[in-house]
C-alpha cells in the first residue's frame, strides 16, 4: 500500500520485508525493518529502539548535585556530554554562575569528546561499511605507500615496509580462520568499491586510530580524573589550579598543562593528516553513492554549544551554531528556545508509552511517561518473538520529539546546514573547501556521505577550538586567576524552595537537552531529549517519519539480504540507543512559569 507522509515522503510496504536486528556497530540496541521492491530499492523504513532503562524516574528525589553522575551513565560513548548538560541544567535552575577557567576547562572536555567520538565513530563503527579489510590482503604495499603519500604527505607512517607489516599481520589473522570481528562480514558484496590499496590504508588507520584514541581521552582524565565517565561539579570543575605552590601535584600544574597541550597537538595532527584525508580518499571512490539525505536538506535542528564566555549562552556567543531550519528553506534560520512549550514537544502514538489520549504532544517540562509495551494487530510473531513489527501501531521505545510539529534531523550535518547564519564563517569555509576539493555541488552535502563528512569537519573545527580554550586558560592563569569553582550556592540551604532549569549542549550526535525541576533541595522532575531521540524518532500521529526512516528511503540495495547500505546510512548518524531510549519521566504538573538561565 502506498501512502504519502505529511513531511513529503512516499511509503510503500508492498515489497519484500527485510529485518536487521541487531543493528551492530552502534551504541545500544536497535532494530530496523525495510520493504524492498523488485529493483532492490527501499520503499518503506521502520526503525525501532529496542531498549529502555528509565533513568529519569530513578533521579526523582535525588540531590541535584549528583544528577550529572546518573545522567552521565546514560551513555559511555558520548561520555561526559550528559554530565555537562546536567550541571548546566542545575546551574540554570539555581542561578549558579561558573568561573572563566571552569568554562574553558568544560569546553576543552566537551570538544575533546567531540574529537574522540568522531574519530572512533569513523574508524571503528562506520569504516567497515565502506572499507573491506579482507580485500586489503590483495594490496601492493608499495602502491599503498604511494597512495598514502599522495593523500597525506604529512603523515609519517607511510613507508612500504610499514604497510607490508600491517598486511602480513592481517594475513596471518585471516589465514588463522578465526575472523573475529570480521566474521560473516559482507566482503564479497559489490557495494564495496575501494581498490585494495585504499582498503589497506584505511584498515591500517583503523588500528592507528585505536592506538591514538586512548591518548585523546587524557584531556578528560586530567581535568575529570577518569574516562569514560569523568567527574564534573555543579558550580565549576572539580580540578583546582596551582601552578606555583607546594603540593601542586594535587592540582593542575605545568606538567599537566603540558600534557593537555601535547594531546591537543596530537588530535590536530591526526585529524588533519589522517582523518580528513581518509574521508576524502574513501569518499572519492563513493561519489556516486549519494543516497541517504532524508530530512537533512529539509528540517534540521541544533542547540549550539561552546560558549566563548562563562554563563552566556546567547546564540551569537556560541562557537557551534544554534538554529532550526524547516521546509527546506536553508536561507531562513530560526532561533530555538527550549523553554517555549510550543517549540519542543514529544509524542508517543507510535512509542511504547501512554499519554491517555491520542495525538497529544507534551513539552519536556510537562513530560510524562507510562510505559505501555503493546504490539499492533499486523505483527508477525509473538510478544516475545517479533518477526515483523507493525509500524501502524506502537513500535519503539523511542518517543517522537517534534520542533513546532516538524520531525527534525540533528547532528553535525544539521549544525552545518545552518551555517548561513552570521558569525560562523569558519564552518562555512570548511564546507565550501571540502566540496571544492571533491568537486561536488552543495546538494551532495545532504546525503549519507555528507553526514559523515560534516562529522569529520566538526572534529577538525573542534581541534582548533580546543587550542583556543587552552590558550585562554593559560592566559587567564597568567593574569592571576586560578579560580575553578563557585561554591556560593553549593549548600542546599542557599537554594530557593522551588526552581526549574534547562541545560543544552551540542553533543557529538547533535542537540541534547536536559530539563530539571528542583523542590526542597531534591529533584522533583528530570527529563532528557537526546539526539538519537530526534533522529531515531518513530512516526507521529500525523504520520511524519523521523530522520533514520526518511534517510533510508529510495536507497538501492545491491543484495537486499545483505544490509550494507542500511548500515551505511544508519551509521552516518552515529546512533546512540542507550541515550535515546532511557527516557522516562515522573508525572509533571503543567507549569505556569518557566525559568531559564
Amino acid at each position, binding site marked *: 500500500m502506498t501512502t504519502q507522509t505529511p513531511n513529503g515522503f512516499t511509503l510503500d510496504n508492498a515489497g519484500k520485508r527485510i529485518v536487521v536486528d541487531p543493528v551492530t556497530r552502534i551504541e545500544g540496541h536497535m532494530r530496523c525493518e525495510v520493504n524492498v521492491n523488485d529493483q532492490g530499492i527501499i520503499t518503506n523504513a521502520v526503525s525501532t529502539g*529496542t531498549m529502555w532503562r528509565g533513568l529519569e*524516574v530513578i533521579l526523582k528525589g535525588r*540531590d541535584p548535585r549528583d544528577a550529572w553522575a546518573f545522567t552521565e551513565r546514560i551513555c*559511555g560513548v558520548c561520555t561526559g556530554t550528559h554530565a555537562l548538560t546536567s550541571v548546566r541544567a542545575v546551574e540554570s535552575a539555581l542561578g549558579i554562575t561558573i568561573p572563566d577557567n571552569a568554562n574553558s576547562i568544560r569546553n576543552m572536555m566537551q570538544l575533546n569528546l567531540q574529537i574522540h567520538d568522531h574519530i572512533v565513530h569513523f574508524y571503528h563503527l562506520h569504516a567497515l561499511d565502506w572499507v573491506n579489510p579482507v580485500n586489503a590482503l590483495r594490496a601492493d604495499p608499495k602502491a599503498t605507500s604511494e597512495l598514502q603519500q599522495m593523500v597525506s604527505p604529512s603523515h609519517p607512517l607511510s613507508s612500504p615496509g610499514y604497510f607490508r607489516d600491517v598486511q602480513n599481520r592481517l594475513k596471518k589473522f585471516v589465514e*588463522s580462520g578465526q575472523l573475529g570481528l570480521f566474521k560473516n*562480514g559482507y566482503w564479497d558484496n559489490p557495494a564495496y568499491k575501494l581498490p585494495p590499496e585504499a582498503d589497506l590504508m584505511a584498515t591500517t588507520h583503523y588500528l592507528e586510530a585505536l592506538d591514538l*584514541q586512548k591518548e585523546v581521552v587524557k584531556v578528560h582524565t*586530567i581535568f575529570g580524573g577518569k574516562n569514560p565517565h569523568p567527574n564534573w561539579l555543579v558550580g565549576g570543575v572539580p580540578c583546582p589550579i596551582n601552578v606555583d605552590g607546594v603540593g601542586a601535584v594535587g592540582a593542575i600544574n605545568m606538567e599537566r598543562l603540558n600534557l593537555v597541550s601535547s594531546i591537543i597537538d596530537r588530535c590536530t595532527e591526526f585529524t588533519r593528516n589522517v582523518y580528513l584525508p581518509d574521508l576524502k580518499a574513501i569518499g572519492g571512490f563513493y561519489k556516486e553513492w549519494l543516497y541517504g539525505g532524508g530530512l537533512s536538506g529539509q528540517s534540521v535542528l541544533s542547540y549550539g554549544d561552546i560558549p566563548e564566555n562563562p554563563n552566556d549562552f546567547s546564540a551569537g556567543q556560541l562557537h557551534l551554531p544554534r538554529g532550526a531550519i524547516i521546509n527546506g528553506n536553508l536561507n531562513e534560520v530560526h532561533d530555538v528556545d527550549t523553554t517555549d512549550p510550543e517549540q519542543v514537544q514529544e509524542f508517543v502514538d507510535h512509542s511504547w508509552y501512554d499519554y491517555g489520549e491520542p495525538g497529544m504532544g507534551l513539552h519536556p517540562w510537562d513530560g510524562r511517561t507510562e510505559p505501555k509495551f503493546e504490539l499492533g494487530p499486523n505483527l508477525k510473531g509473538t510478544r516475545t*518473538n517479533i518477526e515483523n513489527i507493525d509500524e501502524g501501531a506502537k513500535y519503539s*521505545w523511542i518517543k517522537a520529539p517534534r520542533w513546532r510539529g516538524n520531525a527534525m534531523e540533528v547532528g553535525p550535518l544539521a549544525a552545518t546546514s545552518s551555517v548561513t547564519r552570521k558569525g560562523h564563517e569558519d564552518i562555512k569555509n570548511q564546507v565550501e573547501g571540502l566540496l571544492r576539493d571533491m568537486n561536488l555541488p552543495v546538494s551532495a552535502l545532504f546525503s549519507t556521505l555528507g553526514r559523515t563528512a560534516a562529522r569529520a569537519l566538526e572534529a577538525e573545527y573542534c581541534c582548533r577550538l580546543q587550542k583556543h580554550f587552552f590558550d585562554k586558560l593559560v592566559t587567564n592563569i597568567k593574569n592571576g586567576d586560578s579560580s575553578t569553582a563557585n561554591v556560593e550556592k553549593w549548600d542546599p540551604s542557599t537554594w530557593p524552595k522551588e526552581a526549574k532549569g534547562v541545560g543544552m549542549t551540542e553533543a557529538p550526535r547533535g542537540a541534547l537537552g536536559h530539563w530539571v525541576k528542583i523542590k526542597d533541595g531534591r529533584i522533583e522532575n528530570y527529563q532528557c531529549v537526546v539526539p538519537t531521540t530526534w533522529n531515531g524518532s518513530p512516526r507521529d500521529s500525523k504520520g511524519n517519519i523521523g530522520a533514520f526512516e526518511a534517510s533510508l528511503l529510495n536507497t538501492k540495495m545491491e543484495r537486499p539480504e545483505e544490509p550494507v547500505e542500511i548500515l551505511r546510512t544508519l551509521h552516518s548518524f552515529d546512533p546512540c540507543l542507550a541515550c535515546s531510549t532511557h527516557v522516562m519521566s515522573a508525572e509533571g504538573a503543567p507549569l505556569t512559569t518557566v525559568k531559564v538561565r
Partner: protein
Amino acid sequence: METKPRTPVVWVHGLECTCCSESFIRSAHPLAKDVVLSMISLDYDDTLMAAAGHAAEAAFEETIAKYKGNYILAVEGNPPLNEDGMFCITGGKPFVEKLRHAAEGAKAIISWGACASYGCVQAAAPNPTQATPVHKVITDKPIIKVPGCPPIAEVMTGVITYMLTFDRMPELDRQGRPAMFYSQRIHDKCYRRPHFDAGQFVEHWDDENARKGYCLYKMGCKGPTTYNACSTVPLERRRHFPIQSGHGCIGCSEDGFWDQGSFYDRLTTIKQFGIEATADQIGWTATGLVGAAVAAHAAVSVLKRAQKKNEEA
C-alpha cells in the same frame, strides 16, 4: 600463543551504556588491537563486529555451537526482567533469552562492570525495569565479576590475559572479584592518604587545601569503602583515578553505590564504616598522636575489611 587457536570470546550487551567497551579499547598494555588480533577471537560483539542482523546472529550461533564448553562469555550490561524481558530486545526476543542461551556452553563468564556485576544505574531505586545482575540469572557457571563504572581498562585486559596465560580462573574474593585487583581499598594506597592521617582536608571546592592536594574525605570521597585498583595501577593513573583530579571517589565499583546517599555526603553516615569515623577525629584533634593513630588505624582497618567482606559474602 601465536600458533594455537585464539580463545573465542562472545561479548553480549544488555542494559548498559557501553562504557565498559569504551574502557576496554583504552587498554595500553596490552593494546586493544593486540588483544583482538593476537590473543582472543572476538567472534561476537554487537558494538564492534562488521556483520549485522541475520549474519551477526549466525556468527553468534556458529561460535557457541562450534566452541561449546570452550568459549568465554563476556557480558556487558544486564537483563531487565520486567515486561517479560522486553525492556531489552535483541533479534526480536528478550535479551535474557540470549544471555541464557550464550551461557549454556560457556567455559566461564566475565561480568564486565557494575551493570553486569551488580545492576548499576538502571538498578538504582526504584529499578523500574528490574535490571538484574548476571549471577542472579545464571547460577550454574563460574562468573568473574569485574566491577566499576567502567572497570579500569588494564584490569579488564588483565583478567582476560590471566586466563589465557595461566589457563585458569583468577583467584576470586568472596564477592567473586579477582583478588589481584579488588582486595584493597582505594584509601589503602591513595597518594593523598598521608593528608588524611595528618588531618589535612579539603573543606570547600577550590579552597587552598584543594590546591595543595589535601584529602577529599570531607568532600564525600568514598575511597575508604571502595575496593578497586585505581590507586594501585600506577602507570595508568592518567586514565583512571578521580582523586588525582580533585574529585572524590564515588565508589563506582561497589554494589549499590547509587543508593548510598549523595556522592558529597561524608562517609560517617555509612553503617559498615567503623574506625575511620573516629580516625577522622583523631586526625583532627591529635596531631601529636599521628604515629600511634596510624598504627591503630591500620590494624583496625584490616579487621574491618575482613569483617566487611564477611558481611557481604
